[in-house]
């Protein structure tokens, strides 16, 4: 064979005439290991023994005990064995159609052709069968039997090519909290779930035109003739699966880009379906989200931001504002620090707040660039304020999750301090607890390392997400910041007040200063003060302000 596999393939010759077997064996024996069977029954025994290690069967039709047709019939009934290619040996023209119908792939006429011709036919048949098996293995997902993503797009484009005018839907399907199913019920149950979803999607589609694939993990794509009722479609599947899989709270969500615009590339159609699917992530009350104009506007907006990001950095469109932090233990609030907050002064969209772009930059791994920009800007301002003789208060900056995983983080920060003539005590580093959830050991080490250089480290957004008391015990911190959402609720809900008291008590016990951010109302302020939460940040005391204004405030305080 002219490929890269260096093993001799095995060919089974089935013929009741020893002379014919010997001749054929001699012709191809130089290239292959040869096995012989004298009738169909012996052949079936050997096929059973050797299975898929047989690369080819050369099969005579007229034999005693069991003839060649019966062998073909038995092979065609076996899902695995039917993949072994069979060439029929015959002198009868009339036998060819019947053999083809039973799965034979080629014929070698009797008396035999010249040896070169036979060898070429044998080689070509084996090559084709192996190529087709290889394609099949790449074409189908092992777990579910559905197409793999790569082949899915190939077939979806083929539908497009041959049936361009049809109304089609691009659909993304995802099992909500699939990782929890794996965690709680084990990987086997998770796999069983994926197989069941694949089967159900196929059943539900029935004879409707379309293709289905498992793109990855628990993400499935469907490119199908337009469905009138997507909710019924997915509800039927969920109802069946809850019963068969025994997971009563199973939730599956579906993002639909209906009646696709045929001018939009196939991959983009599924980006849209996925986008719709992501829009209801975490909302178990909804199972279907349709890609709509608002999503499209949002998509265009985010694409623009991503496209403009580098230019925005070089043109210094990012502006750092400072929100003062006050100690309220005494009668009069004392300025004790500030948090640097970044805005994007976009030439077309105007002043954008962090919620418009931070998560996006994080998702596209661009956040580190922005963080470095902010750290430099802040260090420069602190240097200027100090040079001007203003009061020095530490300014906190955000350290994103991805920064914490960067081995060069400490050196980058130290270089920035050096460049602007300031010290580690002039800065506070704010990290989020989600970073701890990613890789606790590594984060604890990094934080300890940064603190050994004199940096103070605060835990941001404490009280939401996966707040963990063990984290407080493990992590060497200088303060924790209560999440804005919690502060917003303390005047509205008893539970939130209880949580606040609990966190204040815990912080006290661990001798950790507590900072409350997002304080907007008098009532919140009073409640925090009564709980002995001493450091406050929020609109109630001061809004975030440009560097120049904060510089003046520092001068005044001095």
């Amino acid at each position, binding site marked *: 064979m002219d490929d890269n596999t260096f093993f001799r393939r095995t060919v089974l010759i089935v013929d009741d*005439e020893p*002379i*014919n077997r010997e001749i054929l064996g*001699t012709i191809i024996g130089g290239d292959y290991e040869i096995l012989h069977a004298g009738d169909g029954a012996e052949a079936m025994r050997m096929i059973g023994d050797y299975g898929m290690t047989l690369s080819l069967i050369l099969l005579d039709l*007229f034999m005693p005990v069991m003839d060649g047709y019966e062998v073909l019939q038995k092979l065609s009934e076996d899902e695995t064995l039917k993949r072994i290619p069979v060439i029929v040996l015959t*002198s009868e023209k009339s036998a060819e159609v019947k053999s083809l119908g039973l799965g034979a792939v080629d014929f070698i006429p*009797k*008396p035999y052709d010249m040896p070169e011709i036979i060898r070429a036919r044998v080689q070509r048949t084996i090559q084709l069968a192996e190529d087709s098996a290889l394609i099949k293995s790449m074409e189908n997902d092992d777990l579910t039997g559905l197409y793999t993503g790569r082949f899915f797009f190939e077939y979806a484009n083929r539908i497009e090519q041959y049936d361009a005018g049809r109304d089609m839907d691009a659909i993304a399907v995802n099992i909500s909290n699939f990782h929890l199913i794996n965690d709680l019920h084990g990987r086997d149950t998770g796999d069983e779930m994926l197989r069941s979803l694949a089967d159900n999607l196929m059943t539900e589609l029935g004879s409707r035109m379309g293709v289905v694939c498992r793109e990855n993990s628990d993400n499935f794509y469907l490119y199908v003739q337009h469905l009138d009722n997507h909710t019924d479609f997915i509800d039927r599947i969920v109802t069946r699966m809850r019963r068969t899989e025994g997971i009563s709270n199973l939730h599956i969500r579906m993002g639909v880009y209906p009646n696709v615009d045929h001018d939009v590339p196939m991959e983009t159609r599924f980006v849209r379906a996925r986008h719709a699917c992501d829009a209801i992530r975490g909302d178990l009350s909804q199972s279907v989200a349709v890609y709509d104009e608002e999503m499209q506007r949002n998509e265009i907006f985010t694409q623009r931001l991503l496209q403009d990001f580098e230019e925005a950095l070089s043109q210094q469109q990012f502006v750092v504002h400072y929100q003062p932090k006050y100690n309220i233990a005494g009668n009069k609030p004392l300025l004790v620090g500030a948090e640097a907050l970044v805005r994007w002064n976009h030439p077309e969209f105007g002043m954008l707040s962090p919620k418009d772009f931070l998560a996006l930059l994080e998702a596209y791994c661009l956040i580190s660039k922005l963080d470095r920009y902010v750290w430099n800007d802040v260090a420069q301002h602190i240097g200027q304020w100090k040079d001007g003789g203003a009061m020095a208060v530490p300014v906190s900056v955000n350290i994103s999750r991805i920064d914490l995983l960067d081995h060069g983080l400490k050196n980058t920060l130290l270089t920035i301090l050096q460049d602007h003539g300031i010290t580690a005590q002039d800065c506070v580093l704010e990290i989020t607890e989600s970073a701890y959830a990613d890789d606790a050991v590594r984060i604890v080490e990094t934080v300890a390392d940064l603190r050994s250089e004199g940096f103070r480290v605060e835990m941001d957004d404490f009280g939401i997400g996966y707040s963990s008391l063990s984290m407080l015990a493990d992590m060497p911190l200088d303060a924790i910041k209560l999440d804005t959402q919690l502060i917003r609720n303390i005047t509205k809900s008893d539970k939130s007040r209880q949580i606040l008291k609990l966190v204040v008590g815990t912080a006290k016990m661990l001798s950790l200063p507590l900072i409350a951010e997002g304080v907007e109302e008098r009532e919140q302020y009073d409640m925090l003060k009564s709980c002995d939460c001493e450091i406050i940040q929020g609109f109630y005391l001061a809004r975030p302000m440009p560097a120049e204004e904060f510089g003046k405030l520092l001068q005044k305080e001095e």
Partner: protein
Amino acid sequence: MLSRESLSEFGANCDEGLARCMNNENLYFKLIQMALGDGKLAALHKALDAGNLDEAFELAHALKGVYANLALVPIHRPLSELTEKLRVRDGSGCEPLLAEAEKQATILTSLIAG
């Protein structure tokens, strides 16, 4: 003794037969002897005598294939004609065809012996 020359003289298409045996003379000669010694011609004779045309057809068909592969034309030719008659279960005129095949087989056998 069998030789290319004697076989060609007998009427075999030696080049073709040898090519199928990858030009291995020893193998070719061995297979010819195997064919002559397998008793199938006698079995065919017996089946025809008994009027068992189904069995006769199967045997004739098998023999035709073997002698065709060995390119032993003088034996293959009458067997081929015989097979076509038996395919439609026509027993008439089979004897002379079988007799011719047997005669040629005997000639070849004596060639080997000689």
